[in-house]
């Protein structure tokens, strides 16, 4: 890869060629295979999304031509790697419309981002008796880090309830924001139910009550345009692998003044300005939170994924997935014995469902043999399962490469489940 190519990754523009939706499947090598002699229908996108050739090539090209360690290298490869790595940070900044690239912290994924905020923001600003408010629909990644903090500090975890449709009960949430509420941590989109939460309203309520807001955007960023400044959230966390990028790279957005005031998360190289055995002077954000050699190629791959999504268009991705969701919802509802769990008015492309007396794992196994990859289980959201009094659900979830034929194949596969379980 030449320097020109590196600088093209820096450019904050989309190329004029816009792939048509029918041709998008061609960009994903993994989709073109048979499983059990049937065409693969991949509907486990809420767990992780497959990678387009553009991302695979960007990572491979980077390792083949430009790889070296980043920061403080004086040789050419190190400078190229640094340009690609920091260029990716700029791509990420503009993608979520953050004000400043120093507000973009590289992490392993949304889980690490939330743990970072819990430990760094939490230990800096919270004390015993302070309250953290989450919702009943959170992924374990947005529950357990707060429970750990509560064990450490004696802070109190409060939970905003959801209704039978799987929507947040906003009046209850508003009532739970009290004088001791320091932080509201909420999913933008529920991974188990598909519910899209009114996060801008939640931010307004929380700020009015003097609380900060962290949004878990792992299930939102892949499916809709996100503008952290319009939302006015204090923290926003997401993962690269759910948005066509590689595993092991994710993003924590944090308002600059908050990141500056927070204690470091992990200690090591890169996160310090000066070290002696008597004293440490930490780097400024974001480097203060990026100890050790980072996932450099992961950042490059994530930027390539963002470029890819932009070429298609975030609005087109959202519109296509909304069509698939509507199609699948209507088709599944028409099948006797099917119950959809999560029927919010505003949903992203996730359908959790149950079928008569068939357990979710039996549904998953039978569908797998039809070539249909879905998820079965509690989706790391056990409190959601408890709320709906089910041990597990089957879940189909969509990405931009899914087709209406995929939905039809899913429906056909449910007939096999009924054949076995009656």
């Amino acid at each position, binding site marked *: 890869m030449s320097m020109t190519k590196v600088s093209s990754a820096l450019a904050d523009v989309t190329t004029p060629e816009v792939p048509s939706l029918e041709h998008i499947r061609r960009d994903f090598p993994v989709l073109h295979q048979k499983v059990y002699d049937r065409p693969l229908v991949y509907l486990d996108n809420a767990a992780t999304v497959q990678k387009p050739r553009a991302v695979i090539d960007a990572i491979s090209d980077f390792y083949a031509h430009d790889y070296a360690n980043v920061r403080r290298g004086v040789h050419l490869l190190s400078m190229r790697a640094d340009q690609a790595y920091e260029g990716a940070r700029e791509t990420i900044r503009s993608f979520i419309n953050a004000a400043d690239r120093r507000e973009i912290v590289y992490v392993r994924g949304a889980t690490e981002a939330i743990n970072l905020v819990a430990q760094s923001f939490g230990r800096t600003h919270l004390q015993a008796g302070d309250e953290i408010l989450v919702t009943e629909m959170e992924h374990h990644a947005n529950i357990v880090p707060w429970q750990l903090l509560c064990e450490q500090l004696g802070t109190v975890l409060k939970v905003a309830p959801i209704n039978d449709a799987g929507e947040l009960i906003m009046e209850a949430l508003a009532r739970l924001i009290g004088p001791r509420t320091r932080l509201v941590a909420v999913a933008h989109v529920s991974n188990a139910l598909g519910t899209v939460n009114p996060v801008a309203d939640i931010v307004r309520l929380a700020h009015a009550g003097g609380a900060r807001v962290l949004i878990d955007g792992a299930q939102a960023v892949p499916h809709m345009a996100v503008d952290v400044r319009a939302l006015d959230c204090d923290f926003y966390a997401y993962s690269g692998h759910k948005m066509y990028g590689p595993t092991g790279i994710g993003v924590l957005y944090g308002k600059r003044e908050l990141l500056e005031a927070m204690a470091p998360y992990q200690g090591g190289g890169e996160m310090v300005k000066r070290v002696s055995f008597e004293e440490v002077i930490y780097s400024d954000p974001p480097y203060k939170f990026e100890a050790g050699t980072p996932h450099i190629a992961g950042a490059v791959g994530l930027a390539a994924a963002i470029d890819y999504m932009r070429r298609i268009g975030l609005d087109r991705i959202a519109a296509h997935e909304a069509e698939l969701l509507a199609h699948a919802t209507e088709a599944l509802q028409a099948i006797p014995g099917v119950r959809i769990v999560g029927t919010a008015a505003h949903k992203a492309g996730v359908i959790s469902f149950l079928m008569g007396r068939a357990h979710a*794992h039996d549904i998953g*196994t039978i569908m797998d043999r039809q070539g249909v990859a879905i998820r079965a289980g509690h989706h790391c959201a056990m409190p959601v399962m408890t709320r709906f009094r089910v041990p597990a659900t089957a879940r189909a979830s969509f990405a931009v490469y899914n087709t209406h034929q995929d939905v039809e194949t899913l429906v056909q596969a449910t007939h096999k489940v009924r054949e076995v379980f009656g």
Partner: protein
Amino acid sequence: MSDLRDLYEDMILDHNRNPRNYPKTPEGANHHAHGFNPLCGDEFTVHLKVEDGVIKDVGFEGAGCAISTASASLMTEAVMGKTEADAEEIFGNVHKLLTEEGGEAYLPKVGKLAVLSGVREYPMRVKCATLAWHTMRAALEDVDGTVCTE
């Protein structure tokens, strides 16, 4: 469909639909254990009434997928009236049948439990099939806490 039927044999489907010794806590039960498969959410409690080294009665409660439920039901039938030593031996044979390479060798030793062997082709489901067996064994040995197949 034939391969799916190897897993979901009629006997499995029957024991799932109508589990034997379920839900049941035998009167005078003196050994209990709780089993949980976090992967699936399968969760069972096994109760045994053991007298003079013989399993006089057995029952289970809880809920799980078809494989784990049917396997639990078949387990209760298999160990009912057996000595503790026999139950341990049956557990060993079933466990080897389901988990070991070349486990088919144990088919002749397990009688109708051979119906569980279809799970060998579904590695993700082996834990479902073995949960109740591990739980039964934990009950015999009075293991405290929860048996976890993960």
